[in-house]
């Protein structure tokens, strides 16, 4: 196992093993972040590919001003934003298609996203949370994902998003407020009660 500097030098020298080490250390982070933002497994894999190709191409410009993982997170967020922008453009020119093919099989993804990392008993809560995440503005969603789901501290998340820490705090406050509203509404409509069963610790 190489340390970070040796690994980067190895990659710049064309060593595949060094790149493989980088991939296995960081792929899960990149994939999970993309999955939480895009809520689509195939798209998250596509973004992961693009991110690692860009890392390989621009590693020479990495000057250790931030940690390697923060730098990788910032590339991931930038790539996700570009993907979301492309999706919005495609939607403008979309046509209606049937959900089912000739064999009556579902051809499009389900409306509710099930995160493969959530254990069985929390699947329903996970669906509610990710559904609510889709309804809030993208920057708030990214801030929430980085801090609450990926577990970054405020400094790392602010660097990854290229905003100040106070801006990040503001985004998180608004994200929490909006998510609580969405989740409460969901429980009121579906269970005729407030979000008493929702693991509210997720929003703290």
């Amino acid at each position, binding site marked *: 196992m190489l340390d970070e500097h040796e690994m980067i030098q190895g990659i710049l020298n064309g060593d595949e093993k060094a790149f493989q080490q980088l991939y296995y250390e960081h792929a899960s982070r990149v994939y999970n972040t993309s999955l939480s933002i895009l809520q689509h*497994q195939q798209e998250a894999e596509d973004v992961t590919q693009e991110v690692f190709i860009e890392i390989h191409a621009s590693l020479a410009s990495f000057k250790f001003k931030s940690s390697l993982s923060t730098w990788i997170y910032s590339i991931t967020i930038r790539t996700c934003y570009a993907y979301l922008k492309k999706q919005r453009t495609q939607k403008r020119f979309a046509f209606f298609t049937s959900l089912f093919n000739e064999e009556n099989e579902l051809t499009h993804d389900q409306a509710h996203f099930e995160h493969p*990392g959530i254990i069985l008993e929390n699947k329903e809560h996970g669906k509610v949370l990710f559904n609510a995440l889709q309804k809030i503005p993208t920057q708030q969603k990214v801030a929430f994902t980085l801090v609450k789901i990926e577990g970054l501290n405020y400094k790392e998340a602010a660097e990854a998003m290229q905003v100040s820490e106070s801006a990040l705090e503001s985004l998180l406050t608004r994200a929490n407020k909006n998510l609580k509203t969405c989740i409460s509404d969901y429980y009121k409509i579906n269970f005729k009660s407030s979000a008493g069963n929702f693991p509210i610790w997720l929003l703290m």
Partner: protein
Amino acid sequence: MHRAIPSDKLYAQIWNRIQQQPSLSIYYSGKALIRVAAAIIIIIGLNAVSVLAVQKSKRVQIDDQTGIQNFAKEYFQAQHKDLLWY
């Protein structure tokens, strides 16, 4: 929450793409150079257009002025032709 794991073949796909495009860093820096060149061309073009526009407006002013001078001269000559010896 546990981490989801990307599919096993993803690394192979990434490495294949990197191998097929060994000049990706040249491609990215080439893209940046083209954008810079395009920006410089646009700036030069805009400057050229504004210089031409200023020159044209000066020529119009000069033409106008010459026209006025000629008219004044002809008018004076017509009014005072008996006084003019040339």
